């Protein structure tokens, strides 16, 4: 695709910096300190779950923990609390693997479940806009900040965790890492190995909020107004 006015623009910057243009050979230096690597260093997955649980209170997010056998029950309770009838989910093999598809099948009289389907195009967005609940599986979970990382693809549209009124993230315990450092490093290394980063990467931390009116915290602005994380052992 087009790149316009670049050469004159960058030549000027080089000249302001008092040197020739640099077009190759620039390496990041060894930083003198790396405090980001010290946070929760060496913690076990269970310890990270505890960190996450504690932080969920700060980010106004309901925290639940279960195992694969208990997931259907916890999911059911959460959907009931959210009065969720129309549900939109990503298309992800893990719904099958974790028995969620089976649960949806059992509940098909009560629940209207739409699985994101690329072939339907913009129709997916319209369903997401009407949906009560959006559900995604976390790809990488950041314990420190209580953040769900979602690699948005043709099977996992951004709208799923954005347009519905409420949001549920299913978090396999194995996806937990100490903080954003590990997620960023993973993406950086993939990029360095010639693997392109997805066109849309979302780091989602609880429901949307704002303090723009007299500094009062309002939970629920443009994105979901409520959020639940379900950690699965």
């Amino acid at each position, binding site marked *: 695709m087009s*790149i316009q006015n670049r050469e004159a623009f960058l030549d000027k910057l080089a000249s302001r910096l008092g040197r020739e243009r640099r077009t190759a050979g620039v390496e990041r230096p060894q930083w003198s300190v790396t405090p980001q690597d010290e946070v929760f260093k060496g913690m076990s997955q269970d310890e990270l779950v505890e960190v996450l649980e504690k932080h969920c209170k700060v980010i106004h997010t309901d925290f639940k923990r279960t195992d694969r056998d208990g997931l259907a029950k916890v999911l059911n309770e959460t959907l009931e609390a959210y009065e969720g009838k129309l549900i939109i989910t990503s298309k992800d093999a893990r719904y099958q693997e974790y028995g969620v598809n089976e649960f949806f099948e059992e509940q098909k009289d009560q629940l209207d479940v739409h699985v994101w389907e690329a*072939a339907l195009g913009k129709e997916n967005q319209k369903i997401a806009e009407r949906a009560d609940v959006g559900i995604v599986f976390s790809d990488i979970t950041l314990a420190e900040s209580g953040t769900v990382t979602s690699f948005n693809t043709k099977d996992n549209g951004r709208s799923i965790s954005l347009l519905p009124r409420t949001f549920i993230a299913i978090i396999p315990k194995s996806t937990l890492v100490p903080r*954003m450092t590990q997620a960023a490093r993973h993406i*950086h290394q993939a990029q360095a190995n010639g693997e392109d*980063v997805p066109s849309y990467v979302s780091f989602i931390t609880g429901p949307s909020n704002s303090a*723009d009116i007299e*500094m009062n915290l309002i939970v629920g602005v443009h994105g979901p107004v409520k959020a639940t994380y379900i950690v699965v052992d």
Partner: protein
Amino acid sequence: MSIKIGEVPYKERIQKGIKDDFMRQAVSSAQGRFRTGRITQAEELGNWEDWRDLGEEIRTHTLENLDYYLQQLSEQVSRRGGHVFFAETAEEANQYVKDIILKKQAKKVVKAKSMVTEEIGLNKALEEVGAEVVESDLGEWILQLDEDPPSHIVTPALHKNKQQIRETFAKKKGYTGSDTPEELAAFAREQLRQDFLAADVGVTGCNFAIAESGSITLVTNEGNAEMVTALPDTVITVMGMERIVPTWEEMEVLVSLLTRAAVGQKLTSYITALTGARLDEEVDGPEEFHLVVVDNGRSKILGTEFQSALHCIRCAACINACPVYRHIGGHAYNSIYPGPIGAVITPLLEGYEDHKELPYASTLCAACTEACPVKIPLHEHLIRHRQIIVEKNMAPTAEKLMMKGFAAWGSNPSIYNMSAKMAKPALGPWTKDGMIENGPGPLKAWTDVRDFYAPQGQSFRSWFKQRQKDGGSK
């Protein structure tokens, strides 16, 4: 709009700010909360100084190699299906965006909060070609409806109270509800949701562009930047040319510094990285993506003693720490960039002529420098600005007289001694209980806002001499 907000003289702006009791109370409470948040986060990390050092190193390296990283960024964006336009001036940037709007025959443009588009006056340019522009950040939307400029770079409508907001919604949008913040926000959600769904084009700013992958990182709490980038088929990102990092690893560090320093959060609700155009079969995200890289005076700062001012990550920690901002509020700076960082960069971007007072809107207490997460020596830049202003003979008369006068006065011991003794009887008529509450002449500006200790009739030197005579007991 441009960087400069209006034509009201500096002193009148200050008076207006000082007399606005609601604004002063709001600013003072916001500053308190933001600062506590930042300090709590810093304490929790325990090694905040290491984080600041790292932030400074990253920014220094990136700016030193800005041409290299911008080239890499543009190649990656282009490879991922996006267009890149380098704009030297605000006009060039606006023209490029206008051309896209015309080509797309776009009727509605939704925007996520962006300081650089305020700076270049993009909204006005888009309205010129007939597009309806909707600001989607709650604070920005309120200001847009009320045609009012921002007063803080993180919470732009800080100077408005909820009754004013309710009236604005009622007048402009037919709102009939109460003035509770939740109800006001719910109304904004419902109204803006329709705008998001109907928009032809989305416009965003950029917190950090990532050179290695051509990604644009956006940091929000409301989820509006996500709507703006996920729903419209055309997305245009406008970035100040310095808002770039080498790789995802540096992005992560700077985002961590930004959200902690700005609002005391570990991360905001949404951090989004958008890379080029959407891929085949993807539904969300733009099918056409444009990146506009804006200079607009920034390159004049590069290679100068002020280069570190370009390290700014727009967190507003300096604003939240500033005792002068606390009293005069954002509008008094007459710049969309208020507070200490605004007082440093506004004269650099737009020249001293219109903004020569700003470096004096500071007590030089260095609270700003101490708060800055990337260690910009803000108060030192302000001192340097003052030196340049005096050298250019543009300083306020009082400052020039003071500099000249003090030199003559202070270097002649007998005149100094006499005037120190005379000051007490001379100011007698204005003195009450040892304080001056409504001083004459040059003292007026000070005593309008606070009292001034009346001269004691004894100089420090004579007091010290006396004290030594008395054996140091008093």
